[in-house]
């Protein structure tokens, strides 16, 4: 009996081992001109947010320019873990390294001097030694996004579509990118109220930061409470907490009630589908992370890598905005929003990044 079990076990192990080998043997592209590496932040490569967006940009550049691309997932989220993987990439000849997330700030600070002949792209962060004094090395580009402009466009779009009613906001942690989304969204709604004749209210009690990015149950319960109190649109910039909110909206929409969500970071329309092709996602406040990663790789190939600079991706360079297609927005709303987006691009409308008189 025992020998039978061990035979089966060995068989399974062999199959696994063979399968494991087979996966690694991807055909190498013919003599790539550059090797682009990426180290993932906390979370997975398919997180529908930072890692995925960055990787999509890297992959697109990889196929378009025939580059060798690779990502490594650190075993932890400490500076040592990140540095180890950067070192691994460097040693394997990947001398153009993209890292997403503010957690890489201190890591890149060290890496940019340690590997002076490598290029680094730090998305949503700026290198420093832990003292918040930013030092962007000559071989590093630090990229930020104008989340407030993204939130603004989404706010205008949502307000124009709904005309009247009450809106809410659910944020993850109370950190600058999330806060800027919130303030921008409120500014957008405010702009629509003042200039476009909408009557949307946002009550202070309906603007909250849940405090995490992974509490699905809390997201569902908070969204449910807001909808119960008459909120029709919730802007959820909250990762997994937003998943709970979307889930609640789906249940309500199925029961025939009005419940909309404004998505975040990427076009979340597909996440909100509850029947057929109907979705609860009114629109999404996007950050074009993939564009940022792609553009930097392209710049390096064109020998115009903006080393030492801190770049902001905003409306002007199409780094933020709402999706090109929003099936839940009326065509005239879409047209009006595009018009306003153009005004933002040429500087007629400026969206401040600070809190101003807005809630939280």
């Amino acid at each position, binding site marked *: 009996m025992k020998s039978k079990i061990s035979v089966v076990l060995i068989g399974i192990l062999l199959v696994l081992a063979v399968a494991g080998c087979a996966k690694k043997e991807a055909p190498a592209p013919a003599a790539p001109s550059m090797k682009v590496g990426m180290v993932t932040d906390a979370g*997975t490569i398919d997180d529908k947010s930072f890692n995925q967006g960055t990787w999509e940009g890297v992959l697109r550049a990889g196929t378009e320019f025939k580059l060798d691309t690779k990502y490594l997932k650190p075993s932890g989220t400490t500076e040592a873990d990140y540095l180890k993987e950067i070192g691994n990439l460097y040693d394997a000849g990947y001398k153009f390294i993209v890292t997403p997330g503010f957690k890489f700030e201190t890591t890149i600070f060290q890496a940019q001097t340690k590997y002076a002949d490598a290029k680094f792209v730090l998305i949503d962060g700026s290198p420093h030694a832990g003292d918040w004094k930013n030092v962007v090395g000559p071989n590093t580009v630090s990229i930020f996004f104008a989340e407030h402009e993204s939130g603004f466009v989404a706010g205008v779009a949502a307000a124009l579509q709904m005309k009247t009613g009450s809106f809410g906001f659910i944020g993850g942690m109370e950190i600058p990118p999330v806060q800027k989304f919130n303030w921008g969204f409120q500014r957008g709604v405010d702009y629509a109220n003042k200039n476009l004749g909408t009557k949307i209210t946002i009550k202070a009690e309906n603007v909250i930061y849940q405090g995490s990015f*992974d*509490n699905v*149950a809390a997201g569902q319960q908070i969204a449910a409470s807001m909808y119960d109190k008459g909120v029709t649109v919730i802007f959820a910039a909250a990762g997994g907490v937003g*998943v709970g909110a979307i889930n*609640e909206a789906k249940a309500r929409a199925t029961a025939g009630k009005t419940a909309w969500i404004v998505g975040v970071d990427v076009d979340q329309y597909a996440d909100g589908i509850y029947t057929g092709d109907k979705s609860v996602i009114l629109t999404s406040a996007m950050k074009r992370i993939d564009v940022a990663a792609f553009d930097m790789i392209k710049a390096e190939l064109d020998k115009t890598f903006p080393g030492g600079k801190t770049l902001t991706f905003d409306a002007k360079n199409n780094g933020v905005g709402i999706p090109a297609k929003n099936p839940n927005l009326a065509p005239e709303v879409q047209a009006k929003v595009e018009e306003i987006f153009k005004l933002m691009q040429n500087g007629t409308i400026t969206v401040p990044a600070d809190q101003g008189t807005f809630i939280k």
Partner: protein
Amino acid sequence: MHTLALIFPYAVAFTVPLLAASLGGLFSERSGVVNIGLEGLMVSGSFTCAVVASRMETVLGPGNPGALWMGLGAAVVVGALFSLLHAFASISLKANQVISGTAINMIAGSLTVFLARTMTGSGNVRIVLGFIPSDIPVLSGIPILGPLFFTKTYATTWLMAAVLAVAWFVIYKTPFGLRLRACGEHPQTADAAGINVYRMRYIAVVLSGALAGLAGGIILVTYSGEFNGNVAGLGFLALAALIFGQWKPLGILGATAFFGFAATIANVSQVIPQFSRIPGLLLKAFPYVVTLIALVLFSKSSQAPRASGEPFDQGKR
């Protein structure tokens, strides 16, 4: 009152999976096997339910109750099968029950994520639509009780109410329940009385696996809608509720309801003006602090099954 009526249905929805897992733990511990693997069993149930329900939804249509029930059924089966590992290690091999339970937690956590990745290319498995909460006709019109218990209820809530009643009956009113409890209190005596302790413990552990799997499935088809590799520590909370509830079905109902309400209040406190004056951190820590205090207070009079955690050795007296 109005606020209470608002959050009540959400608190109940949060309580139900906790209750299911805790009842599972009850069966196992009453038979003398500590099942620290509840968390892992819930994860495997949640994963199975997500896979089956999402596949069936593409056939039967999104939110189809049949698809969701099939998912829950599969979760029960997989939970039960998975718990056999724990049963085999801790009953037949007389291994340390805490270690084999921990192993279950570790295997379930990594295996499900691995499978989810291979199947969907992503670590997450999503169902299009879960159960839609509905009002019970007539009963929801009853003043006070109606809005609290009969509005926005999930079908799974009523299922769990039935399971709880059956569990109480089985444990206290049937020969099976008496034997089960005997195995957890003094297995040698039970053995001398002609009860097959090994068999009783196997049945109990499999029951606990089935209920924990169901709990994982319920989380998925009610409030989460997406399997993302964990169940947010509810399995461990269920263990705490089991101790807090003193290994009794109704005690567990009280303990899980307490956790459910405390967690819900903490979650929605920011949205409800009446609660927003209390610091959120305080509300979030509240249930855990109370549990710690309760555990200290109850430690002297704790009525844990006496043989819980001890492998049964027929030769020992």
